[in-house]
């Protein structure tokens, strides 16, 4: 299993480097095993350097830079072992418009291999959806599904106030 772990680690590492460059349009990223001699127990350090900046610890990165670095790692893992589904709950909240566009472009490359369920307030992210559910609490404390929109081919189909047949 030593061999298995280090093969997986190297594959994730290669993906992380590549996806980071794609998301940031440059810069450098890496994953480092803190203790090479003990692969099965060693901690893993994340190295990330946005384009044009000097290398510093991840704690000094900005809120948006940290979110994008997390997205790069997430998709690097996905590339190695795609999970059939992925739920993302408002991960675009700290991002500015430019970074949301880059995130959405990256996402487009993964939608054919996994199903994504994305909770968001952002119009650009919503534009990616094949189907859109609106949730409401018209009666305080009771959640209902209000509408189902097939965003890609069809127009919004108002399925009636409670899609919960």
């Amino acid at each position, binding site marked *: *299993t030593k061999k298995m772990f280090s093969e997986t680690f190297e594959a994730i590492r290669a993906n992380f480097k590549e996806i980071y460059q794609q998301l940031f349009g440059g810069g450098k990223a890496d994953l480092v095993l803190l203790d090479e001699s003990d692969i099965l127990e060693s901690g893993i350090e*994340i190295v990330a350097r946005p384009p044009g900046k000097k290398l510093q610890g991840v704690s000094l990165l900005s809120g948006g830079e940290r979110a994008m670095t997390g997205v790069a790692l997430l998709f690097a893992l996905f590339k190695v072992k795609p999970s059939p589904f*992925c739920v993302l709950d408002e991960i675009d909240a700290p991002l500015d418009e430019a970074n949301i566009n880059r995130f959405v472009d990256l996402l487009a490359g993964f939608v054919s291999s996994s199903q994504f369920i994305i909770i968001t307030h952002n119009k650009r992210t919503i534009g990616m959806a*094949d189907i859109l559910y609106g949730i409401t609490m018209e009666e305080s404390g009771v959640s209902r599904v209000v509408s189902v929109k097939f965003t890609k081919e069809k127009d919004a189909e108002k399925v009636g106030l409670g899609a919960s047949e």
Partner: protein
Amino acid sequence: MRFKRLEMIGFKSFLERTVLDFEPGVTAIVGPNGCGKSNISDAIRWVLGEQRARSLRGTKMEDVIFNGTTEREPIGMAEVSLTMSNADGVLPIDYTEVTVTRQLFRSGESRYLLNRNPCRLKDINELFMNTGLGASEYSIIEQGKMDVILSSRPEERRALFEEAA
């Protein structure tokens, strides 16, 4: 293997039977603050076998059962069903469609069902073994928790990589 339908009854704020049909690609979920979006992500995590109340933002598992509003009484049971297509045979079971159901009663009794037949949690866990379906760390990113991948200690990050191995 892909998600086809999620059905919630009495789970958190979803008092009435609510059905979400999933398509391949991206399903987006929108709505105002507090309307129940993140509760849907909790429902998926729960039906896939999550045992820690903390990961569902509660203090005891009973917190997932609809607890009433100023107008409605609390109810006695929460139920979530997840239907998946198994046309590709990824799930080691002889059905082209698999529905996993989880129920919890106020008494503390919990039940699991596989295609409407009672089974044990162990059966569900075995079904999902190595498919990436268990409530794994990287397939559900909770609200505000993208940062956790970056800020957790190096030893904790290992768990992500081991899952992918």
